[in-house]
């Protein structure tokens, strides 16, 4: 539990800074520091067990089906990294309090920082590889947020985006690699995977796994050729650069390579790729670092170079090299974080970090200057500082390494890289802190408050102490971590300053001398370099991104070009192509005996075909097309009757009525005819697509209908259980309200949402352009009498009868054809006829039902019925039923499913009425005579204040021709 808490604590704590910033910046910083300190304390509690060589574990099931467990483990290596992350985090929190200015939103900064901290600790403590990837991506995201912290700076936004693209893409590759690795190793748990080295190295998937994992590690740790994002990430505030982009996050790639060292290292491919990339990165980045005038850019490239150094050591694959790698991670984190903070102090105090405008700062800010010089000397590898120790170990390893038959090239390049490292380290010292005091600084610098230099001082103290007293101070920790990396193969080496005059010491001396010579010749070399061509990583990156975006746009514009017809044609053609390719072989005639053709069936068939073709041919005349379409709907309804589906027939019939009424209302305000504008070529194309679709569907359905069920149908269960389990004999209704009640609940919710959307679209018609068009809408009346007396009288007499029928259908629905859906539609039709016959205003004035509330009530009742089962400790929507004796009615069966069906009923009535009543309201809006009572109404129409209906005749406008539209 404690383990998970270490990783979760920063996430939980991330809510504190934004809340506490109102209490002041000190409180905010203190809270952040307290969270970090608590996590660190929890980690240190585990220290005794870890140093005894135990592996502490904690695991919680999360998505076991997907192999995802929230499982954590803590061994020496994880402890080493977690300690670095939390300890340096504490220093960074202190430093940032004084670094950020009053205008910077500090709450947000600390929240992001804590998010990052939690994610980073999560990476190093994860046991499950999927969990590791999740934390891995979270560090990319929090890094994105922190680089872009100063949102107003374009460099910040660009740098953030570049970092996200590169590390995010690497994270995807890593996910693929780890999935393959887990498959080969047979487990998602790292602790298990690490014991399966033979299986992994012997697998034919080894190379893909290696390449994918390394793609993740190299992008994260900025290895060549993915190194370019790190310098651009320096647009972040300096505490972020010191923490994420030097001490911790960029080391996640190194951590991963160290973590998987036992299963992946030791092969030829590992050595060639990892050691080669590391060496190349170390050399190239060190060379570039010399010439960077921006102090943070200099340090950024130096960071890339040192990451390359550790990568190279891990690539060598020997126990000693792994020990050196771990040791250098520690040393680099201490001196580089200190250096970044000094660069931040210089920037903060002198208002510039351009080396060309600085110099002589040691006299003005002696504390900062001394600390910066000590850290720089460690970076250059000068004894007795800690950088010297790990660099000696590195050179020792490099000197007897031969890379792929290149002779002495490998050691020579390593020494060259060390030379460049000396040169840029001394440049940081001499060009910034030494030399005469100048009088043209943008701002006269002096030492900052102690809160800013104290964290630096602590780190520099570590640099010196580890250098002088390496074995007592750092020895146990480094060996512990190295043993975890190498799975116990690390040598029992002691860390010490003086090894005697070794080849490595000689090489170090050569590098120091050559580096100083290089710096002495700085001016001429800069001019020489300026004259040569250099690749511009940022421009290349942006050109690549731009090219990808242009390509994607070209493809989507070709298909998706604002012309719906073309888009639909493309989509349909694509669907048909896929369907034909995949379904071609499946179409044929099966064994199932067919039904004989009945004469009436043939007649219906001919009617449907004729009607459908008529609609296709005469669709320009919209009213005709609509009426013929409803004929097709009726034939569909009869088809359902024929083939034993009375419920469907009833539903289809009532939906057909409602839909036709709705379309008629809509057609009132649309042009009555479609213009003939399609070219013969387009019609030909459309007929071809339609014909292929129709033939395909026919073939498919024919194949289905002539074959028997391939596997036994689950309906056997429904038929058998309908009466004993669901308490109803109408199986279709029992399925709807009981067996698959959850589906039905979803469906009535969707229906309710659709109705609300329709209401929203129609309600706002009464504003803006639309209402202008409605007002000026005029067309000749379709009939002399808008509300024919016969119709009005007939519908009013019919209403109670129709409502009775609806209620009857509802109640019998559980046992006979009917139910909530059908009853709702029937009642809806009964009510809507009133609107049609007597007009919107008349009907509206007499309806007291709020249709929105009715929909809400329906969904609520249905959901509450489902929730009710919880009270009896049954799963959601378990139904129950019983028989009750009701006076007059006799024995009545009441099921909770009935209550659910009531919800369905209410929703359907509400939806139908909300849609049609609002459509009718639009119609009322355009009727100049609205409000004039019909002949048989003796009561005057109520005034509709909220509608502001004009009773005066609209301004006459020229009648619009229909083809004008």
């Amino acid at each position, binding site marked *: 539990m404690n383990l998970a808490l270490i990783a979760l604590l920063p996430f939980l704590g991330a809510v504190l800074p934004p809340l506490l910033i109102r209490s002041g910046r000190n409180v905010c910083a203190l809270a952040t520091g307290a969270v970090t300190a608590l996590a660190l304390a929890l980690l240190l509690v585990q220290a005794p067990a870890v140093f005894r060589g135990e592996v502490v574990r904690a695991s919680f099931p999360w998505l076991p089906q997907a192999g995802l467990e929230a499982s954590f483990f803590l061994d020496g290596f994880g402890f080493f990294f977690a300690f670095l992350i939390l300890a340096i985090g504490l220093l960074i929190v202190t430093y940032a309090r004084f670094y950020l200015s009053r205008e910077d939103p500090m709450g947000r900064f600390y929240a992001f920082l804590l998010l990052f901290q939690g994610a980073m600790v999560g990476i190093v403590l994860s046991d499950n590889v999927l969990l590791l990837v999740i934390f891995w991506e979270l560090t990319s995201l929090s890094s994105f947020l922190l680089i872009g912290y100063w949102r107003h700076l374009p460099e910040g936004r660009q740098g953030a985006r570049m970092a996200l693209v590169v590390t995010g893409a690497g994270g995807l590759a890593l996910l693929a690699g780890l999935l393959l690795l887990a498959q080969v190793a047979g487990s998602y748990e790292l602790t298990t995977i690490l014991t399966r080295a033979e299986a992994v190295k012997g697998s034919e998937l080894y190379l893909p796994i290696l390449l994918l994992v390394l793609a993740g590690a190299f992008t994260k740790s900025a290895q060549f050729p993915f190194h370019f994002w790190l310098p651009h990430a320096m647009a972040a505030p300096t505490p972020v650069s010191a923490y994420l982009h030097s001490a911790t996050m960029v080391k996640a790639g190194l951590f991963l390579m160290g973590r998987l060292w036992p299963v992946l290292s030791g092969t030829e491919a590992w050595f060639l790729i990892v050691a080669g990339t590391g060496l190349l990165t170390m050399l190239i980045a060190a060379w570039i670092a010399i010439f960077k005038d921006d102090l943070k850019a200099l340090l950024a490239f130096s960071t890339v170079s040192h990451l390359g150094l550790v990568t190279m050591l891990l690539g060598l694959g020997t126990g000693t090299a792994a020990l050196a790698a771990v040791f250098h991670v520690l040393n680099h984190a201490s001196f580089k974080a200190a250096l970044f903070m000094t660069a931040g102090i210089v920037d903060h105090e002198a208002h510039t970090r351009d080396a060309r405008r600085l110099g002589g700062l040691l006299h003005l800010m002696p504390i900062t200057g001394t600390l910066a010089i000590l850290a720089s000397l460690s970076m250059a590898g000068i004894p007795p500082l800690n950088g010297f120790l790990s660099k000696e170990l590195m050179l020792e390893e490099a000197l007897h390494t031969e890379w792929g038959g290149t002779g002495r090239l490998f050691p020579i390049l390593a020494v060259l890289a060390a030379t460049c490292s000396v040169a840029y380290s001394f440049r940081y010292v001499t060009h910034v802190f030494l030399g005469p005091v100048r009088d043209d600084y943008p701002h006269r610098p002096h030492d900052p408050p102690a809160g800013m230099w104290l964290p630096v001082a602590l780190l520099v103290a570590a640099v010196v102490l580890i250098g002088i007293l390496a074995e007592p101070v750092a020895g146990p920790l480094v060996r512990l971590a190295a043993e975890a990396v190498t799975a116990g193969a690390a040598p029992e080496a002691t860390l010490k300053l003086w090894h005697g005059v070794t080849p490595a010491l000689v090489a170090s001396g050569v590098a120091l001398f050559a580096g100083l010579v290089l710096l002495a010749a700085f001016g001429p070399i800069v001019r020489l370099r300026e004259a040569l061509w250099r690749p511009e990583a940022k421009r290349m990156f942006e050109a690549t991104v731009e090219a990808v975006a242009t390509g994607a746009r070209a493809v989507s514009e070709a298909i998706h070009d604002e012309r*719906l*017809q073309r888009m639909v*044609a493309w989509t349909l053609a694509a669907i048909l192509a896929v369907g034909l390719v995949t379904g071609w072989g499946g179409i044929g005639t099966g064994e*199932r005996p*067919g*039904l*004989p*053709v009945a004469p009436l*069936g043939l007649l219906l068939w001919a009617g*449907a075909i004729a009607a459908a*073709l008529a609609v296709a041919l005469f*669709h320009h005349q*919209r009213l005709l*097309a609509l009426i013929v*379409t409803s004929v*097709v709907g009726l034939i569909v309804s009869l*088809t*359902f009757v*024929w*083939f*034993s*589906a009375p419920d*469907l027939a009833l*539903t*289809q019939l009532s939906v057909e009525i409602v*839909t036709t009424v*709705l*379309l008629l209302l*809509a*057609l009132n*305000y*649309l042009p009555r005819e*479609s*213009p003939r504008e399609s070219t013969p070529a387009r019609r030909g194309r459309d007929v071809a*697509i*339609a*014909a292929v*679709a*129709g*033939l395909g*569907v*026919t073939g498919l*359905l*024919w194949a289905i*209908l002539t074959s028997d069920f391939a596997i036994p149908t689950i*309906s056997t269960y*429904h*038929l058998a259980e309908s009466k004993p389990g669901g308490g109803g004999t*109408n*199986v279709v209704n029992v*399925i*709807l309200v009981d067996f698959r009640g959850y589906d039905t609940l979803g*469906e009535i919710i969707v*229906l309710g949402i*659709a109705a609300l959307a329709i209401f929203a679209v129609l309600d706002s018609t009464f504003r803006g*352009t*639309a209402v202008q068009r409605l007002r000026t809408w005029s067309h000749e009346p379709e009939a002399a009498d808008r509300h024919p007396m016969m119709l009005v009288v007939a519908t009013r007499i019919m209403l109670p009868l129709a409502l009775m029928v609806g209620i009857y259908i509802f109640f019998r629905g559980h046992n006979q054809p009917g139910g909530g859906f059908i009853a709702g539609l029937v009642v809806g039709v009964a009510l809507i006829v009133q609107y049609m016959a007597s007009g919107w205003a008349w009907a509206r004035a007499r309806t007291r039902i709020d249709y929105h509330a009715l929909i809400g009530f329906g969904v609520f009742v249905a959901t509450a019925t489902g929730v009710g089962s919880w009270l009896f400790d049954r799963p959601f929507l378990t139904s129950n039923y019983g028989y009750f004796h009701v006076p007059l009615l006799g024995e009545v069966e009441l099921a909770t499913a009935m209550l659910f069906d009531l919800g369905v009923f209410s929703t*359907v009535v509400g939806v139908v009425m909300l*849609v049609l009543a609002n459509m009718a309201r639009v119609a009322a809006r355009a009727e100049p005579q609205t409000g004039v009572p019909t002949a048989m109404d003796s009561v005057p129409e109520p005034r509709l204040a909220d509608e502001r209906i004009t009773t005066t005749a609209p301004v006459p406008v020229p009648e619009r021709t229909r083809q004008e*539209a």
Partner: protein
Amino acid sequence: MEFLVASAVGVLTAVGVYLCLRGRTFPVVLGLSFLSYAVNVFLFATGRLVVGRPPIIDPAAPGYTDPLPQALVLTAIVISFGMTALVVVLALRAFLEAGSDHVDGREPGAEGRR
């Protein structure tokens, strides 16, 4: 009968697809209605064609047709009403706003292409 149903669904599909490819909103709405008919009958028919055996439990019944596709299609019919209603209302509103009932929201050849 199987061939009649299969071919009729094919014709309904073809007419639906053809109408969906028209340039004005109203035929497209009708086309969607046709596609709804076709899809609903198609899904219903996957329970195979059975005459005179409705899924109403009755001791005297000789057997029952498959009730599950019926239940699924019943809700599908109601949902397709919701969909048709939404589309036609959008079409109406678009016409009232833009003054054109072309599916692209403007008359072909009119100004305003981006």
